[in-house]
Structure formats: C-alpha cells, structure tokens
C-alpha cells in the first residue's frame, strides 16, 4: 500500500521483523538523496524508553516496507553494521540536515524554509515534496521534481513550484503528477 508520510512520521517508528514479529530497533535519522529523489537509508536507535543509539543502520535495500505504524524488515540480520553499509548511511553528513534550509525558486523567490520531507512509501521510498514554513508564517507543502539540486544551505526548485504550494498532504498528493507533467512540458 502506498501512502504519503513525512520524515518526522517515519522517525521513531518501530523496526519490526516480518519473520520474527520482534521490534528490533527504532528509526532515528532519515537519509535521502535529492539527486535520485529517493530514500537512501535510516539510522537507528535501540528500542526502549531510555535506550540509546544503535550502531546498526538500514540502507534502503534492506527495508522491506514502510507503513503507518512500522518499518518492516525481513529478519534481524537485515540490520547492517556500519562497516558493511554505504558511507552515506553509516556516516550521515549531519551538516546536510535540510530542516531549516531555504527553498528558492530558480527565479530567486523564497518559498519558505523546509520543516519536513514528504515521502511516498510502500516498498520503496520516493521523495515527493517538502513541508515548508511559508515566509509570512503558516505551513505549506510543495511538490518536488524527480531530481533536485542542493547547493549550500538553499534548495533550488523550478519556478512553477510557486503555483503548487498546498495546505495539506492530501493536496500535495493530488498535485505531484500534474506538477511533474508540467515540468516535463516546459
């Protein structure tokens, strides 16, 4: 089942094994590739109220599915030690945390600041938009092209994004296809 989830909804989800029915970890950081437009992996916390970080990580290939209530893996060995994981996931570039980054159109208009990432989840994680705080205040959602450039502390989006600022996830979900179709035509 594919649905839209924000990165903050994914954070804190229990990681559950399909075969074992055990909650083996919890999602900590969400790592995505703007260029590829998809989820690259997650880092983990241990399960439990006062439990700390887990060394293990989950590259996207090891994720069986992400749903509203849990991130599913096939079994406990799906959790990967950092030395066996891609560098981006094992050692996330914390300085490239996009929360708080400015969103600018190619024409130089500021659409706001990033407050969250929106992903289409199911058996893979595709980045479809950002949740932003608009310059005048208030929350909005903007769709993203399939590939996006990140430079410095600002995210640059196509000019027509300005017309696609939506109020909620439902509005965003409905507009992504039209947005990308328009991009393809221009």
């Amino acid at each position: 089942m594919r649905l839209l989830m924000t990165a903050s909804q994914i954070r804190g989800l229990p990681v559950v094994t399909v075969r074992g029915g055990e909650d083996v970890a919890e999602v900590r950081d969400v790592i995505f590739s703007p260029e590829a437009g998809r989820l690259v992996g997650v880092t983990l916390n241990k399960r439990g109220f006062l439990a700390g970080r887990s060394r293990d990580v989950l590259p996207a290939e090891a994720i069986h599915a992400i749903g509203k209530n849990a991130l599913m893996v096939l079994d406990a060995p799906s959790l990967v030690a950092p030395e066996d994981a891609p560098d981006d996931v094992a050692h996330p570039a914390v300085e490239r945390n996009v929360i708080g980054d400015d969103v600018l159109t190619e024409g130089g208009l500021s659409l706001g600041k990033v407050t969250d990432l929106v992903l289409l989840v199911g058996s893979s994680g595709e980045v479809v938009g950002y949740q932003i705080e608009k310059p005048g205040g208030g929350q909005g959602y903007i769709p993203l092209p399939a590939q996006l450039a990140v430079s410095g502390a600002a995210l640059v989006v196509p000019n027509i994004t300005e017309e696609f600022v939506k109020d909620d996830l439902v509005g965003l979900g409905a507009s992504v296809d039209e947005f990308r179709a328009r991009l393809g035509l221009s």
Partner: protein
Amino acid sequence: MPDDTVARTPSPTLLQIDTARPDGGKQTWDRDPSRVRILAVGVIDWVIVVVIVLVVASVAFVVIRRRRRGGRVIAAKEEG
C-alpha cells in the same frame, strides 16, 4: 460532637510515649532528648540525599533522551 466518655490517652510526644502494658495499665517511656535531636538531623540528611538523587536522575534522563533523539533529515552526498 461525640461525648467524651472514653478517656483519651495523651498524644505521644517526641520525648514521651505511652504504651499499653499487658496487665492493662499504661507505661510511659521517656525518650532521651539528646537522642531525639540526633534523629531530627539524620532525617534532614536523608531529604538532601533524595533531592540530589532526583536531580541527578532528571538530568541523566534528559541527557539520554536528547542523545538518542537524533531525528534529522539528511541529504546524502552524491557518490563517486
């Protein structure tokens, strides 16, 4: 107001405690005032210890929760 037909024993004080004797009588125990004073000081020590433990536990709790939170959304670098 219930009428006071039952004789009430005086309330025990720190220095004087009345207990009932097996033969039905009353026994008065006089406490050593110097011992009572030491006990009061001991109680304050314990209160201080409990407060310190609570403060340390709260700080530890906050530190652990913050350490674990992470919760960032990170843009991966383009590989090679």
